[in-house]
């Protein structure tokens, strides 16, 4: 909470450079020694800095981030790691996370949906992005970039409604294609995977299109002039450069599918097919008793950890790929 505010006095130009730095303040004090905590010299710089425009401008946003983001996340983490002891006190422990074994079905479902959904979308999305890049039209590239970024943000409640109408048990396309005959049902993992493609494929296109467009023409030419075939180009140049981006895109899709809540909640509801985000919601609704809240918080922390890991690897892989595409 105090992270963004604390360094402000030191770097705010509103205060003279010497006075602002902690330790340089009080006149007469030996250089390097900090003046006593309660002396005016120690706080002069700070009060000046607090009135500087930088602090005034940063304070409101910092407050909002603190109240509506950092404190809730901190609270969630505290509850997740707090364990009631027998004598009524609390200690830090992983018990709430061990409780999660009762949610193993939800966890398995979530992982299954996310792995299958992201794999299909990664393959379909990268093939599409590849073809778009092959067409070599700048106009098409920019249109696709805009539309895919719009669709990548989809995944809300309306998406589920449109899929119910399209592929639900009385859906228009469902009847048209006779999907009942092959045992397809929207209210299962198949339906979730199909629905997630709607925003996962555009996400993949959005992430990988710059890579495919960036594979330079000179490289193909160099390859040809050195006697390489199309196949050698892809085997020795194209695929090695594109792989990190494709892998990164796939990981991002996995995280995106794992975190999706709204459309899944509308489609599946609270019964039938448990998923981690849906379990969090039903546990929160179950009231204060029965330790439901602590388990919900532990699940929430698990989701955050997964998202952090996903974004970490996505960023590393993107950077590896971007190195070649400057």
């Amino acid at each position, binding site marked *: 909470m105090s992270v*963004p505010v604390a*360094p*402000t006095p030191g*770097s705010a130009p509103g205060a003279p450079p010497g006075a602002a730095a902690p330790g340089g303040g009080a006149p007469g004090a030996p250089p390097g020694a900090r003046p006593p905590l309660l002396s005016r010299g120690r706080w002069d710089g700070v009060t000046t800095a607090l009135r*500087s*425009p*930088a602090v*005034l*401008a*940063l304070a*409101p*946003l910092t407050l*909002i981030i603190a*109240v*509506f*983001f950092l404190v*809730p996340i901190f*609270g*969630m983490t505290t509850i997740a790691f707090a364990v009631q002891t027998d004598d009524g006190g609390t200690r830090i422990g992983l018990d709430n996370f061990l409780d999660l074994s009762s949610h193993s079905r939800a966890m398995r479902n979530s992982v299954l949906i996310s792995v299958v959904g992201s794999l299909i979308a990664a393959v*379909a999305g990268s093939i*599409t992005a590849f*073809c*778009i890049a092959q067409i070599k039209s700048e106009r098409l590239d920019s249109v*696709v970039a*805009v*539309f895919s970024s*719009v669709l990548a*943000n*989809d995944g*809300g*409640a*309306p998406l589920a*409604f*449109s*899929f119910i*109408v399209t592929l639900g048990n009385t859906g*228009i*396309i469902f009847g048209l294609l006779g999907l009942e005959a092959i045992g397809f049902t929207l209210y299962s993992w198949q339906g979730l995977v199909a629905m997630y*493609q*709607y925003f996962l*494929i*555009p996400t993949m296109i959005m992430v990988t299109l710059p890579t495919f467009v960036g594979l330079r023409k000179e490289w193909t030419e160099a390859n040809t002039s050195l006697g390489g075939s199309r196949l050698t180009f892809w085997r020795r140049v194209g695929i090695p450069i594109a792989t990190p981006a494709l892998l990164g895109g796939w990981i991002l899709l996995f995280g995106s599918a794992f*975190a999706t*809540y*709204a459309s899944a*909640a*509308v489609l599946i509801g609270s019964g039938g097919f448990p998923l981690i985000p849906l379990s*969090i*919601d039903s546990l*929160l*609704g179950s009231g*204060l008793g029965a330790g439901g*809240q602590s388990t919900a*918080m532990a*699940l*929430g922390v698990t*989701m955050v950890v997964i*998202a*952090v890991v996903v*974004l970490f690897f996505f960023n590393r892989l993107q950077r590896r790929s971007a190195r070649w595409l400057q």
Partner: protein
Amino acid sequence: MASVNWRYSNWLPIVAVALYVTVPVLCSIYYAVFPGGRFSLSAYSVITDDASLAAAATRTLLIAALTIVTLVATLVPAVLAVHLWAPRLRPVLEILCTLPLVVPPIALAAGVVALLRWGAQQGRGSLASEVSQFIQHPDLPLILVGTYVVLCLPFTFRSIDAGLRTIPLKAMVEGSSSLGSSVWGTVWRVVIPNIRGPVLFSVFFATAVCLGEFAIAATLNRETIPVWLFTVSNSNFRASIAIAVLLNLSTWILLLVATLSAGRFSALGKAKRKAAALDEATTLEKEAH
């Protein structure tokens, strides 16, 4: 011949994806306005008939308006401050603004519920309990405004940060203050007009987020339009589809306008157009001489 086929085969996956994206929308529209195969807008009578929809819409728009104002009024000064006066804080602000990306909305909802319950447990009449009551007021849930601002931050920060990086900010502010303008006067009259694109992007993006967000509103039981859709789908499915189509299309349009305005008004694009215009003017002048 073979090469021609190869060229057209490139369009196959693109057309397939485009179909996959448009068919559900077309089906929803068909379902909404062709009940029983005949055109009718009867499903939309819910707009006038159902007072709960009007209430949900008013609530959503109010939340959206407050979110936009809060977002722009807090984010723009903060990004400006790190660009102008505290460049060392820029990475800190960037991390803080990007962090919400790693917290799925449902996890943030869990945290918010924990916080509100903690406030409520502090006993009747205590400050924490009063604040908790106040910010989840059913008519104007300020808690949603705050969390929606947070959800918008990762994208809007990047846009405004990039916008400020492309303009000669320091020179503008110094020039303006040497002409006697105050800092905030400069910001209002010089800097904001130059980052109109990113600011517009933030406005449209925030509106789209407010119209579409479901996880937090549903968890807190505050009936915004998406939550209303979910509730009403049990009793009047066709109406929920009809409204869902409208909501979906307006979200898309908002995001489209957001993306386009970020590019259209960008300082770079503007500079290019200006340069072209200037070029033309000077050649005309030369020809005249």
